[in-house]
């Protein structure tokens, strides 16, 4: 779905490494909503997320040469940059201090609270996916993928043993893959 009528993935990569602003503008339009979605989900702060998104795209532009097509798709690479940047900000001291009102008790529990109270996105097919994942499976995926929590942190937040985190996470990811494959999104 990331390929468009105008550019193939290979053309996007070539344009990016050549620092072609026109191609980069296209890349921005194509991927910024997904990356912004990730950052917002991680930080739960639209203002901060806009700042991080700008940094992420500047990073992508500057570090275009470090992208290796043999290691994965361009979107995967960009997504990792966005996730890492957002999680770095989430875990930074200054961000925690700004968010102090919502992080006044145990910050990890606060994270859980943020996840569970996030409103459902009305994106096409998303509600379909959501109704096939249990609330716990969504929380597991969100803590790991968006909040960058370790297995130990997840075990603490969800109050389940470490071994159970692994088992349930595998089930959640497998379930997600099955849903995505069968719904042909």
């Amino acid at each position, binding site marked *: *779905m990331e390929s468009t009528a105008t550019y193939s993935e290979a053309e996007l990569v070539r344009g990016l490494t050549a*620092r072609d*602003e026109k191609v*980069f*503008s296209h890349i*921005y*339009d194509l991927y*910024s*909503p*997904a990356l*912004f*979605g*990730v950052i*917002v*989900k991680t930080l739960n702060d*639209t203002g901060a*997320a*806009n700042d991080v*998104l*700008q940094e992420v*795209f*500047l990073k992508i*532009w*500057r570090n275009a040469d470090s992208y290796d097509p043999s290691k*994965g*798709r361009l*979107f*995967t690479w960009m*997504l990792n940059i966005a*996730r890492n940047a957002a999680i770095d900000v989430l875990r930074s001291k200054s961000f925690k201090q700004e968010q102090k009102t919502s992080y006044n008790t145990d910050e990890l529990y606060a994270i859980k609270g943020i996840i569970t109270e996030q409103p459902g*996105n009305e*994106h*096409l*097919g*998303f509600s379909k*996916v959501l109704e096939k994942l249990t609330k716990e499976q969504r929380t*597991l*995926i969100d803590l*790991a*993928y968006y909040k*960058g*929590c*370790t*297995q130990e942190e*997840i075990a603490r937040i969800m109050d389940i043993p470490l071994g159970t*985190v*692994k088992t349930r*996470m*595998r089930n*959640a*990811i*497998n379930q*997600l*893959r099955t849903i*995505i*494959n069968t719904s042909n*999104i």
Partner: protein
Amino acid sequence: MDPQHVISSGIIELYTAGIASEKEIKELEAAMAQFPEVAAEVAAYQRAMEAYVQMQSLTPDPQAKSFVFSNLNNQTIMQENTLTPDPSAPIVSIERPKGARWKWIASVAAVLLLFSLVLNYVFFNRYKIFKEYKDKYESLLLSQNSILSKSNLYKARLEQMQESMNVIQDPKVLKVTMPGTKAFPTALATVFWNRESQQVYLKVNNLPEPAADKQYQLWAIVDGKPVDMGVFEMGDTVNLLQKMKITGKAQMFAVTLEKKGGAASPTMEQMYVAGKIPG
């Protein structure tokens, strides 16, 4: 490594979720490089995850894009500056302050090093002297302690002697010498008996050291009947007067060897010493 084993191990799911350990990530990436089927499996999981992510897309602030594009060139210039020197820039003016700064840092470092060396020397010498005094102090402390404990020992012994002297010098105290019996002619002991307080003391002059399960016992013979005056210790205590039981009346004192703790009646064959009260 077996690719099927890697696929079924569950590592790929944890890797996709972002919670695989560093070791697991390394192993999986090695397997991906080696086996195309593992790489394909990882890619399939990633696509599912990315589809999930894309479903949650949000529209960013439109101003964000213009900010990014207005700063692309700034960043590019900055990046080029840090990577390659600008050929149009005068080389000398860049080199000179840089060189001067390094010279300045180097000279400060050298001075600090020298200063540190001098301090090291001074403090090391002080430490050596200090250690010498510490050793001396410790040995003095040790000898003082040993003198103190010896002095306490002497003091205790003196007090015991004083006590013994007081008993012996008391005019009310009667001295009863108990020579050895026929069976033990070399044995000798003395009873000091305060007739007013009725207290009996014993001084061992010469008695053989008994076996471990035996103890000497003093008896008073009152109107022909033996009365227990208690058992007594040997060893170092023989140098002192030992306080025994009290008796108001006695015609004779004797010592027998009994089982440890004493006996109810004396074993006559084991009588070592016996002495009549004079008068």
